[in-house]
């Protein structure tokens, strides 16, 4: 329900001009034509599938699922209200924020999709390339533009990459999907090293700003950490460099085995040195051609859209005192902002018992009001299935917290054991082997006690319902992989993964645990950490120090034979 007292605020983000609007409008018409040709039979399902995937439309267990792009996780309040409206009108009143910062709707009808796309186009949104074997949504650090850690806001670059990759004629039928992330800090909040390609804003020895490019990271059946492709690419060369990587991938990737067609496999096969050589060749040629050079004026023009809001000055920089519950929430969910008197507030969509990452239409509408009233009309979606209000005044935090409590989104658990990532799993997904959401719920309920959560500290649990790893279990401090063993759901534990700048791939512990045992097994593992940890160690640190053995012994002790 729109709060009549709160005016929608113009956001500090990219705004479509007539070219962007026409592009999206024509794309909608194109897809409407493709839907008509499918319904008439002019297109078979086999022919239609890549076309609908490139407009974000999957056929899942119960219905079609539509994945709406949220470029670099940034949404305006107007867009949030439109998402709420679409979920209400065309779906079942809720949506799911994903590990690639998009929004998924699970009960969509094919015949409604053209109308949905038109409504999205009205608020400068689309579903272009959110699936298919093409460049997918560009994701970014959720604190971009607000944190003092960054060299600069990486989102202008993300927008430039988004435009360059949109319906790129050479790269819409790649061997597999291609995911790109951008960042501008040493801290990696976007899991950059697990992406097919990542771009980090850096400064070179001479103090000049440029880009460090990584490639070959990935989740899935065979996880890899990305390799450095170039330590420093000049600003004006970045699109030429990225195109060079894509070109080598499109030309040289296998096409004979769908499980071996990501760029991570190509780089692992030929080696990063050979990959760099091939990329360098294409890059040099593109530079000579000059058509992909990024002029400084263009970078500045796009950057201007993301200019920070006018921050108030003279604000008190102290945290308000609003009781112990509020203080607990601040401890985990509030982060330092670059402007004095301001803060970054994380809304965890992870209240124990809830479906991780889900929000109802009503909740989305209230969040839109919060965005307008407290966060210059802007919110960010994180790859951990949470939301962030990037620019809030510290003095407004108690009011925000009170509103979040009404919404049941006030769990003070960002980064704690109950802040779990879970894919939709077998409840929704056609590819899944096991359910993930109920496991997340049972673990969150078990560890609900806040004192206990704080005692445990930072512990990232990530749950995938199948080997495709959309729940990022390889990057979990504790990862959980659902498997199907003779028709029964089992859950394997994976320990020691990290999706941050200290990226590591988790190690599988051993045979899986049953649905009713996995939460207990996690508890036994956590107890080993609590017993063994040295001062200041997170779970991940203790695991890295002592290894798997004690965790494994404890986990299987008392477990029913799997």
């Amino acid at each position, binding site marked *: 329900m729109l709060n009549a007292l709160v005016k929608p605020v113009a956001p500090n983000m990219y705004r479509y001009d007539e070219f962007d609007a026409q592009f999206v409008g024509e794309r909608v018409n194109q897809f409407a034509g493709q839907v008509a040709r*499918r319904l008439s039979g002019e297109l078979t399902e086999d022919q239609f599938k890549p076309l609908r995937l490139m407009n974000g439309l999957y056929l899942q267990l*119960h219905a079609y699922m539509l994945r709406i792009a949220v470029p670099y996780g940034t949404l305006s309040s107007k867009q949030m209200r439109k998402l709420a409206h679409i979920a209400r009108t065309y779906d079942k009143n809720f949506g799911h924020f994903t590990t690639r910062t998009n929004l998924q709707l699970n009960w969509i009808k094919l015949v409604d999709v053209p109308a949905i796309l038109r409504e999205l186009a009205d608020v400068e949104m689309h579903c272009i390339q959110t699936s298919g074997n093409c460049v997918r949504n560009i994701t970014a650090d959720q604190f971009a533009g607000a944190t003092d850690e960054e060299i600069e806001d990486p989102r202008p670059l993300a927008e430039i990459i988004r435009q360059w990759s949109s319906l790129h004629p050479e790269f819409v039928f790649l061997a597999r999907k291609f995911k790109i992330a951008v960042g501008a800090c040493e801290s990696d909040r976007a899991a950059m090293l697990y992406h097919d390609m990542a771009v980090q804003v850096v400064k070179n020895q001479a103090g000049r700003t440029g880009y460090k490019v990584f490639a070959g990271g990935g989740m899935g059946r065979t996880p890899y950490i990305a390799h450095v492709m170039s330590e420093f690419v000049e600003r004006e060369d970045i699109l030429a460099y990225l195109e060079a990587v894509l070109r080598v991938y499109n030309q040289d990737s296998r096409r004979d085995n769908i499980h071996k067609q990501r760029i991570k496999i190509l780089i692992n096969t030929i080696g990063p040195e050979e990959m760099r050589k091939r990329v360098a060749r294409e890059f040099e040629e593109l530079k000579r051609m000059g058509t992909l050079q990024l002029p400084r004026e263009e970078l500045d023009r796009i950057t201007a859209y993301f200019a920070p809001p006018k921050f108030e000055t003279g604000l008190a920089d102290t945290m308000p005192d609003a009781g112990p519950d509020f203080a607990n929430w601040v401890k985990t969910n509030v982060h330092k902002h670059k402007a004095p008197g301001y803060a970054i507030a994380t809304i965890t969509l992870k209240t124990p018992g809830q479906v991780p990452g889900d929000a109802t239409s009503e909740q989305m509408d209230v969040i839109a009001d919060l965005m307008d009233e407290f966060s210059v009309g802007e919110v960010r979606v994180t790859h951990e299935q949470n939301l962030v209000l990037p620019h809030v005044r510290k003095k407004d935090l108690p009011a925000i917290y009170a509103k979040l409590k009404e919404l049941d989104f006030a769990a003070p658990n960002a980064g704690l054991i109950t802040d779990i990532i879970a894919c939709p799993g077998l409840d929704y997904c056609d590819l899944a082997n096991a359910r993930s959401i109920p496991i997340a719920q049972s673990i969150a309920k078990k560890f609900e006690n806040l004192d206990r959560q704080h005692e445990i500290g930072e512990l990232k649990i990530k749950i995938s319902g199948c080997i495709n790893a959309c729940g990022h279990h390889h990057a979990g401090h504790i990862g959980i992989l659902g498997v199907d063993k003779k028709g*029964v759901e089992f859950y394997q534990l994976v320990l020691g993964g990290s999706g941050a700048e200290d990226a590591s791939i988790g190690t599988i512990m051993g045979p899986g645990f049953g649905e009713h045992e996995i939460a207990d097994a996690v508890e036994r593992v956590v107890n080993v950490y609590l017993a063994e940890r040295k001062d200041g160690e997170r779970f991940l640190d203790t695991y890295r120090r002592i290894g798997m053995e004690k965790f494994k012994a404890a986990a299987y002790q008392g477990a029913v034979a799997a």
Partner: protein
Amino acid sequence: MAHQNHGLQMLTANRLRDGDVLYRKGSGWVLMLADGDVYPDQASADAALAAANAELVRNEFVAPYLFEVREDGGKIQPVKEREIIRAAGPTVHPHTGKQAGQINA
């Protein structure tokens, strides 16, 4: 609980226009698993799948496939968890899907 599986199968697909889950009955489709045909042997199951595949050109449904069921206390139940969920709806949103009577006519 002990159950009998004599290789019973059913045939399912998704309706093209809305993605709704369908179950084969006769030469048509129904929305609820309980109303669908059960094939007692491989020959009848294969015949049903072949008939459905031949009808794909009608562009009414997609991706037909066979799955195992068993008789459990007089009721027909899928063997695999996936098909149980597909027939009923998501376990985490019990107020949605066929289990909640939400049928797209």
